[in-house]
């Protein structure tokens, strides 16, 4: 009897200690990603020109160009508007998103040929976006509240000391079971993300390059590359031009603004 009791207490102790350790790892991971998030915020609003290069397994390149507008929203996810400029067949096609911290994002697509605004079912975000290796999910804001975190280890990456943090999407409709994030210790910026699909297979890797600090407060990468390990294709999203704090407001992110974007 006493033995049993002792074993029970020992068990409880181990359990507590374990959860203490796990809790610590989780908090540490969260703190790291919170710092990266803070490094990216405070931009107010931004306007950019983007070029997307789709590279197939043979290395052949197809280019798409687009414009984007982003608006930082306090206490909620940010708002964004992407407008396609090329290929000409889809010029004027535009995507409006209201990101949310926990709730699924609200998204609308404008199809200029039939002048129709169509609501996108947020569940359908794991598929490829416009034939690229990015999914709508990859291009959405990675709000802190949308994941749970676990610090894994320290590791060198690209001659930089990095933290490696595992984050697990809380959204059941996410295309990923987990993501490994490499954050450099100097500036707390995401350098690389490895994405694991629903079968826990290492599907894609995402690289962030050419970080620059703007208005001496927040950082932006100059280029994001997504490599698909399954099909050998990759997509490079290059930011050609960007400006911040242009005085954009909510009225630049309405369904009317979606319709008038060309």
């Amino acid at each position: 009897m006493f033995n049993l009791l002792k074993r029970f207490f020992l068990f409880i102790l181990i359990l507590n200690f374990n959860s203490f350790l796990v809790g610590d790892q989780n908090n540490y991971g969260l703190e790291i990603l919170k710092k990266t998030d803070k490094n990216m915020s405070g931009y107010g609003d931004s306007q950019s020109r983007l070029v997307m290069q789709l590279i197939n397994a043979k290395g052949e390149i197809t280019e798409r160009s687009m414009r984007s507008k982003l608006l930082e929203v306090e206490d909620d996810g940010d708002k964004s508007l992407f407008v396609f400029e090329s290929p000409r067949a889809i010029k004027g096609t535009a995507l409006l998103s209201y990101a949310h911290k926990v709730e699924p994002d609200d998204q609308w697509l404008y199809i200029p040929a039939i002048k129709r605004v169509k609501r996108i079912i947020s569940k359908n975000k794991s598929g490829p976006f416009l034939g690229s290796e990015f999914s709508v999910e990859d291009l959405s804001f990675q709000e802190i509240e949308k994941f749970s975190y676990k610090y894994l280890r320290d590791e060198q990456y690209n001659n930089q000391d990095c933290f490696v943090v595992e984050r697990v999407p809380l959204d059941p409709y996410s295309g990923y079971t987990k993501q490994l994030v490499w954050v450099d210790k100097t500036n707390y910026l995401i350098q690389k993300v490895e994405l694991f699909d629903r079968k826990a297979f290492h599907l894609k890797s995402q690289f962030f390059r050419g970080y620059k600090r703007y208005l001496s407060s927040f950082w932006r990468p100059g280029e994001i590359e997504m490599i698909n390990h399954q099909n050998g294709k990759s997509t490079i999203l290059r930011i050609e031009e960007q400006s911040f704090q242009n005085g954009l407001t909510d009225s630049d992110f309405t369904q009317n603004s979606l319709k008038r974007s060309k």
Partner: protein
Amino acid sequence: MLQDLIQRITKIQVILFCLLFNYFLKAEVDYLGDFSFEGRYFLEDGFLFQENFHSSFTFSPEIYFESDDGKKSFTFKPKLRNDSQDEERDLIDIQELHWVLTGNAVESRIGIRKEFWGVTETFHRVDIINQTDSVESFDGEDKLGQPMINISLETLSGSIDFFALLGSRERTFAGRFGRLRTPIVVDTDHPIYESGAKNKRMDFAIRWVKFFDNLEMGLSHFSGTTREPELIEDLSTLTPRLIPKYNIIDQTGLEVLYILGGLAIKLEAITRSGQKDRFSAITSGFEYTQIGIFKSRLDLGWIIEFNHDDRIENSPTSLGTRLTFNNIADTQILAGILWNDNTNEKSTFLEASGRIGDCCKLSLEGIVFSKGSQKPNILDIQKYKSPFEYLENEDFLRLEFIYYL
């Protein structure tokens, strides 16, 4: 007095010209648009021996420029179409010629425009601003430009649009040598209007739309010349003809879209008075997409929609699927079937499309009609309870090549 008026007019013109010139100077002009070739091959002879092969060219250039970071813009988009067989399918239309002025939460759009309302895929009950260019395509999604003044307000309780519609357009109908036509030709040169002002009557419309998380709602009202004319039989002339009759109607519409997980639930309903008895019509259904089927990057979407129309004894149901390849060429295959349970009428279609390079797009489409158990009677249009009876011999293949300018 007269001189004063002339002076004033010239002044306005000068100001307008200056404004336009200003626009041109400030803004970069975008030249867009497309050029397309279409060939349609009908598998069977027409009931009046119309040709089996019809081809057409369409030229639709677009000039666009904006200033003030897109707060002011001007669009001009004409559309010219030439058909090899049917002169009723020739078209010169101004699809768009308008200015857009954007203020804070207010947008004014003045000129010829296109405006779409609705949420469903197979039938568009609520959409009413533009007239349908019904000879362009079988799905009825191609429209003619509509002159209007439209003020759009964004408020906390949704967006509200007011429309003053300056005149109305006549629906296009296939002519004597065209295919996919009624057995008796529609005489588009002698339409009947209820309004004394004929097609110059000023009509009004209003629409309110709001979204709440997973729910989107729209309510609209239209008061004016119908877009869907009644076809009146005229046997008084040597060759019988159908005359389109444009009544003045009042139509209230409701649109609902509700998102439940991965499922979209849709409803469009209208009630219309002014054309015979007041009636209602409803289209409602579901849309669901399977992402990444067969462990691939292909998506498969499903649509099912049910219809009700007080004017028709029994309405068809439609089932559609869309296979999206998610490749660089944006390849898509659409397939659908429209059927009527009671009459066994059916129409089945398959459409494949994809881009070729960055300049062009190719699409191939086939439709097969089956009249079911109804007996056709070519001479009596009133006995045609459904359009499929006269479409029985109109199965066709359609190839379209579009070059983007």
